[in-house]
């Protein structure tokens, strides 16, 4: 194949509708510098992921979560997931363009780790709200569903904390919706594995990677889990349930 026709077929593939959903425009955080100049021009069709802003100031979740933790968690950890995700997707795209299946497979764990990290943290920031603005308890459909499943909100929290506290190492505790049964479930996930891989819709997630609480709570994960319920944004959880329910 000549150089020109190779470029043409590469271009044709780049403009084929992407299978994965494009969620946001390329950001200055991830300028998407591509080493191959022919791909570079078409790369803007493949839009990169961006670090979402927090819906509140870094200090807004004090005293439950310190400003130091929020800043690090957002600007370092979440940002790293976004950057690494974009880098992995770029490599994946390059491999895909060459029909290099092995190259594509090689990027899959990085996409899962970092993509999962981006998905999870994006949900997490919205699941929390400053103490003053938090409603003290769930209401409406969510409250009913929790009571159906666990008898009371307190029992739900206690079960959730027990299971989440028992996670070995890094992971998340989730309240999820099983769409098939229409029932709520508590489910823990290791590392950054998204809840969707367990077949549930994420409603509320609590990060128990050590970086989420270490600077403030040290190794006392149970204390962190006890305190965090003061800043859970029940409204947001309810909205997610409504969106997910048929």
């Amino acid at each position: 194949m000549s150089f020109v026709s190779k470029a043409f077929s590469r271009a044709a593939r780049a403009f084929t509708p992407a299978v994965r959903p494009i969620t946001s425009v390329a950001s200055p955080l991830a300028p998407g510098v591509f080493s191959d100049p022919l791909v570079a021009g078409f790369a803007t069709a493949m839009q990169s992921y961006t670090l979402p802003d927090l819906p509140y100031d870094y200090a807004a979740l004090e005293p439950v979560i310190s400003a130091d933790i929020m800043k690090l968690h957002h600007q370092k950890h979440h940002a790293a997931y976004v950057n690494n995700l974009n880098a992995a997707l770029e490599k994946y795209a390059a491999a895909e363009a060459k029909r290099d299946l092995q190259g594509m497979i090689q990027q899959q764990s990085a996409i899962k780790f970092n993509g999962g990290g981006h998905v999870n943290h994006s949900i997490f920031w919205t699941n929390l709200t400053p103490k003053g603005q938090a409603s003290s308890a769930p209401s409406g459909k969510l409250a009913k569903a929790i009571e159906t499943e666990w008898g009371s909100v307190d029992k739900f929290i206690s079960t959730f904390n027990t299971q989440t506290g028992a996670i070995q190492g890094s992971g998340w505790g989730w309240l999820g919706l099983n769409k098939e049964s229409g029932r709520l479930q508590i489910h823990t996930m290791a590392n950054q594995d998204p809840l969707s891989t367990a077949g549930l819709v994420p409603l509320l997630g609590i990060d128990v990677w050590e970086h989420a609480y270490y600077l403030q709570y040290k190794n006392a994960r149970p204390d962190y889990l006890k305190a965090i319920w003061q800043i859970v944004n029940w409204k947001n959880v309810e909205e997610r349930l409504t969106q997910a329910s048929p």
Partner: protein
Amino acid sequence: MLSRLGCLARHGTRLPALVLTRPTLVTRRIHTLPALPYPLEAGLLPVFTPKQLNLHYKKHHLAVVQNSNRLIHGTKYEHMDTEIIMKLAAGDASGAAILNQCAEVWNHDFFWKCMTPGGSPPSKNLEHHLAVHFQSFEEFQRRFKMHAMSLFGSGWVWLVLRDRQLEILTTVQGGCPLLHRDVHPLLGLDVWEHAYYADYENRRGDYVDNWLKVVDWKGVDERFNKALEDDQW
């Protein structure tokens, strides 16, 4: 029966040679926080400030010691050696928590011994063997760091001897190299976030760079030679 023997052994009663097999089988084992081979108050510079060392030792390590003792109390595991507890619990569906805590007890016990103030250099013999398996001592360090950086989540990175080959092995969460067949751990690095977060936040690379400066290669050497000896039988 074994605990009775252990009791007798501790009181100095002479037992027939037949009965004394592996010393660990007759030793009652309750986990304790071991003494650090260097003073806690000084930290272990440049890798750990006193604050970070204190947190890791006095909070995390102590917590896994206490948790493991609490979990094995009143169970069949209570009088067993840590290594045996792990191997049995690994095959027991209800033994997951015991396995994880005991593994972390063993891991941390081992970890402190891998380091010494200022580090100590590897012997020529060990350097030669590292060069055989990793091209050079520097290349080994580079690859060890690469494993540490690419370990996602919580875990440990190890230099082990397996089938007379030096290998880098990673274990995740509460895993332990002793659970792998025919593996002799020689050197271990904790990359759980708690191990470095107070000093380095998320900069795991800086942590590993500094850790490489305090590795007690003399101890690695001793373990390496002993492992080769053990493997002969």
